[in-house]
């Protein structure tokens, strides 16, 4: 049983090792990656059933007891996100394999991409499952250091410049992260989250608040919360489409997950959290307005990503079961939809040869399939029923109204406004890209680099994987009932964290 918890971390790592060793056999790498990520989906689905039926599954690695050893905890929240993430990583890998075969032929092997991508997946899984603060740091480092490679790989000078911003900002936040772990350890003598839940509560109020705020800043940088979001729209759009998709879909959401975990378990609040509500409102509005000002499709999507981080912060700010249910639903919805949109943007630029919206047009006629693949996630992101975005937003707005304070009302209003702005941004992309007269694709501005655009070719694998994610997003809306129930139970777990602590520290739930 506990093996299920170790697999999402160890399996991609082992596959990464094998993939490196078989660096010259492109097909071996591809099959290995797809099989392992496929197994991960099955594994996390089983784990979700187990965790939901029998309670959290805890693995004390190497059988070292809880506050001292490394603990992996698979509770409802962690496993839900693990499942969605593994579906997204699977689809993105399929997409990039398709892209590579189209551009370079079947025999072109890539020594670095597959191993690094698998290590990134292992890092993401570890971040969800880790039961102590230091291990969470390790997970972030595994994830981030592979992302540095992926974003700077075979880059041109412009892309390196953008990648440097990302790398330096991430390293700075990691530095702050390790510092705050040292502070927490100095104050409490433990880094185990379950143990911390009890120890931190005994600290003086001022110290608790200070530590909590530093942790908030650390994860705020990682999840691109305004005003710590500045690095994101500059760096993400410069990576190849599948890389941007997995970064936008997963990395920021892992930051949100860590924020939810620490702020509910370790630095628990007693009531609605006004600071977070204010940040949420600013994040939503700044992101949405920033998106409207863009001409570059990828930058626009990046600003929308920032804006929608605000929704997740909103639910966390409301800080009750309904709010957290909304956050969990929103994270699940947003991981799939945001990744899909970036994949579609990759398909679009292959046909247009440019990322500038003002120089595109007529794609609906030229390739109606892409138009459909864009329309569904776009409507979902804007929160139009009956898509997943609507379900998640509805849950959040209800939570905001039920909270009944003036600050919650204000943010609820802001959320509705942001929804409209998102719809407007999506409509702008739609009219510019898909309507208008058909234009010839522009030539690739930089034929040397990894970003191949304007060839007009799309592999079937790329379309299928994008379609897969669109289907998942629709499936989320179809299965909204059961999903909302599981999210509700996960949120209830977060609010009553005694269960988590007892299970981790030994004892019956």
């Amino acid at each position, binding site marked *: 049983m*506990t*093996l299920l918890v*170790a697999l999402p971390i*160890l399996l991609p*790592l*082992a596959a*990464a*090792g*094998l*993939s*490196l*060793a*078989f*660096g010259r056999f492109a097909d071996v790498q591809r099959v290995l990656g797809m099989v392992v990520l496929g197994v991960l989906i099955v594994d996390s689905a089983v784990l979700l059933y187990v965790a939901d039926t029998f309670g959290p599954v805890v*693995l*004390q*690695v*190497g*059988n070292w007891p809880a506050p001292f050893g490394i603990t992996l905890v698979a509770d409802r929240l962690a496993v839900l996100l693990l499942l969605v993430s593994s579906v997204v990583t699977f689809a993105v890998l399929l997409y990039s394999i398709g892209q590579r075969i189209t551009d370079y032929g079947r025999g072109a092997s890539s*020594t670095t991409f597959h*191993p690094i991508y698998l290590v990134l997946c292992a890092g993401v899984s570890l971040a969800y499952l880790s039961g102590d603060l230091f291990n969470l740091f390790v997970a972030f480092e595994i994830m981030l250091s592979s992302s540095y490679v992926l974003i700077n790989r075979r880059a041109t000078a412009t892309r390196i410049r953008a990648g440097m911003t990302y790398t330096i900002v991430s390293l700075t936040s990691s530095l702050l992260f390790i510092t705050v772990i040292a502070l927490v350890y100095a104050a409490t003598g433990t880094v185990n989250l379950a143990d911390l839940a009890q120890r931190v509560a005994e600290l003086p109020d001022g110290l608790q608040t200070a530590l909590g705020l530093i942790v908030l800043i650390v994860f705020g940088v990682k999840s691109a919360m305004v005003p710590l979001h500045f690095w994101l729209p500059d760096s993400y759009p410069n990576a190849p489409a599948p890389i941007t998709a997995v970064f936008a879909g997963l990395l920021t959401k892992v930051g949100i997950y860590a924020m939810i975990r620490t702020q509910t378990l370790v630095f628990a609040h007693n009531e609605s959290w006004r600071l977070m509500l204010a940040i949420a409102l600013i994040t939503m509005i700044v992101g949405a307005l920033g998106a409207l000002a863009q001409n570059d499709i990828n930058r626009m999507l990046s600003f929308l990503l920032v804006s929608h981080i605000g929704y997740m912060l909103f639910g966390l700010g409301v800080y009750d079961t309904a709010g957290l249910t909304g956050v969990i639903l929103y994270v699940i919805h947003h991981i799939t939809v945001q990744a899909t949109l970036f994949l579609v943007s990759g398909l679009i630029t292959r046909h247009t040869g440019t990322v500038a919206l003002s120089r595109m047009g007529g794609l609906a006629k030229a390739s109606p399939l892409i138009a459909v693949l864009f329309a569904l996630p776009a409507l979902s992101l804007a929160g139009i029923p009956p898509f997943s975005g609507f379900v998640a937003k509805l849950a959040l707005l209800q939570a905001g109204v039920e909270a009944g304070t003036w600050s919650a009302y204000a943010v609820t209003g802001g959320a509705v406004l942001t929804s409209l702005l998102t719809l407007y941004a999506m409509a702008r992309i739609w009219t510019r890209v898909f309507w208008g007269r058909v234009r010839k694709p522009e030539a690739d501005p930089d034929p040397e680099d990894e970003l191949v655009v304007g060839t007009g070719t799309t592999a079937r694998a790329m379309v299928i994987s994008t379609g897969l994610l669109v289907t998942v997003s629709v499936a989320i809306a179809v299965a909204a009932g059961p999903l909302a129930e599981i999210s509700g139970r996960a949120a209830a777990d977060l609010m009553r964290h005694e269960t988590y602590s007892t299970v981790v520290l030994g004892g019956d739930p």
Partner: protein
Amino acid sequence: MTERDHRPEPAAEDSDSWTEWDVPAERWLLSGYCRDQRERTVLLELAARIVFPTVIVFSLYLLFAGHDHPGGGFSGGLVAGQAFVLRHLAGGRLDDSSTLSMRPPVLIGVGLTIAVLTGFAPLLFGEVVLESDIYKFTLPVLGQIKLVTNLFLDIGVYLLLLGVVLDLLRTLGSGIEANAAAARREQS
């Protein structure tokens, strides 16, 4: 500024061999090829030749002693890597080709795989992932041996680290030197 790559030829009896007294007599550790003559330091080359085996043995000692003494796969691998760094400093990029026939990424991959598979091994004995055991047994000549199963994880880490250092030498060391040499050749 051309690069002087030349094989060491057995000095003829009557030639003025004293001018080439510093050309290695045999291909032991340092290959006979040498870089630009003006960049050579005899002291470093000699020191590297003498120290290299010792450092490797020391790194293996660290690997085996690692369980309850200072050391382990990580520091062992780093020390072994340093031995190769020393060789690189002394011999330059032409030395690297003769060091290992395995490509560094393969070494990293094999190391990582060994390390992770060690994590799964305890499951075969009905234990938890990454759990370790201690076996003690007596061998005829060596006396009592204490084998901690963590050692296999450490061996993986050792190989991984060594692979990383070699890869760094290959890309940042020899790679840059090769580029510089190519640029020089273009200029002249």
